[in-house]
């Protein structure tokens, strides 16, 4: 492969501008894991069905295994779980997963919590149907969905109570 095939890209990664060269078919997931060593997002199926690779692009959840890194633009904002480490809502989501016992093998969980976080940003008190729909692109092979749904509901309640200035 000649260097001329490389594509120079610039984008915002977890709040900071970054610049790198990629081969045309490198996925965003490969870029995050190999170049930036951000390994929360994982490859499960590699075809956009399992959601283990979910990250936020411009605030919306997408499968990073299907996004070609070369298509990123300077204005694109990519957020991974690592970038949400200090986000108060993400902290609540993660604690709710722990409290509900929603984590089994853990492989799907980075994607699950990103999708959960994204839902709660849009819909602070989601119904069970809304939770199921928001998580329908995230597959847990241990099949522990009940506790995951309970965790999201709990996170919504906790965050809602916090916003009202105290616990009930």
């Amino acid at each position: 492969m000649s260097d001329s095939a490389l594509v120079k890209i610039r984008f915002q990664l977890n709040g900071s501008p970054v610049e790198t060269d990629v081969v045309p078919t490198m996925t965003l997931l490969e870029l995050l894991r190999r170049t930036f060593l951000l390994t929360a997002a994982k490859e499960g199926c590699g075809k956009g069905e399992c959601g283990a690779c979910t990250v936020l692009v411009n605030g919306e959840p997408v499968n990073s295994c299907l996004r070609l890194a070369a298509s990123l633009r300077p204005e694109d904002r990519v957020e991974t779980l690592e970038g949400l480490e200090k986000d108060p809502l993400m902290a609540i989501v993660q604690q709710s997963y722990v409290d509900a016992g929603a984590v089994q093998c853990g492989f799907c969980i980075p994607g699950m919590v990103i999708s959960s976080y994204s839902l709660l940003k849009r819909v602070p008190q989601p119904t069970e149907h809304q939770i199921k729909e928001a998580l329908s692109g995230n597959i847990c092979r241990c099949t522990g969905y009940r506790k995951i749904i309970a965790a999201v509901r709990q996170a919504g309640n906790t965050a809602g109570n916090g916003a009202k200035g105290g616990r009930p």
Partner: protein
Amino acid sequence: MNSILNNIIFHRPADVPAACALLASLPNAAILAGGTDLVVKLRNGVLPAVTDLIDVCALRLGTIAVEGGKLRIGSGCTMEQIRNNPLVAARFPALVSAVGQVGALQIRHAATIGGNVGNASPAGDSIPALMSLEASVVLAGPKGSRTVPLADFFTGPGRTVMLKGELIEAFELPDRSTKGCFLKMGERLAHAISKVSLALTTWDAGAGKRSVRIALGAVAPKVIRALAAEKLLEAEAWPPKKEILERAVQAVCEAATPIDDVRSTKGYRKKIAGVLLERAVRSLPDAL
């Protein structure tokens, strides 16, 4: 992760004419929009001939606007963008319903309507809805743009009337107030390729009647209209009486000419096409 195909060249044209010029000059180029279909195929090695990727994401094809009696939907609009757009929501419930049933949320935030139609799958979920809404396809090409009715756009599975150098720029839908829905039968609610799908759109035709459009997916080499069923439902006052609806259901089953394949069987698809029509009619807000 073994996806690296080192010999592919990535192009980022600055505007539509530049993209068309590239498409015209490169014999084995593929258009990259949302990537949800193309990237899977590239990674699985089913597109060994592709030498060039033409990224159309920066061409500003992601707008939705009312222009001259039509709602124009840019080909680069994502499924979620269309689903959440107030102009679409106020006019075309069948389209809102269809784009909301594609893949799952992560797919819908990336997948574009231009890609879903351009792939020309008989099971593409946005196609029956667009067909029921009498959409046209605006194609940009080296010699300028042309508009093709969606009903004339497909020539077979994966095949369209698009010429070398052309790309889908937008879809134009007659601006009218409609009622409708899109129903599909798949293995599960999310991430299921349709075994059978049906879009129903109706609009006021005066004297208590409604104009009716019914389009069926995955029951023929391309998405088809169920014209006989439409005529039956248009002939009498809306909502249809039981026996009229039964005849329309029968007509839909007869219009379907499905095949047996990995996803379903011919007999099941034929039967379910009719079931979907009955459910669709009953689901409309003005149903009895």
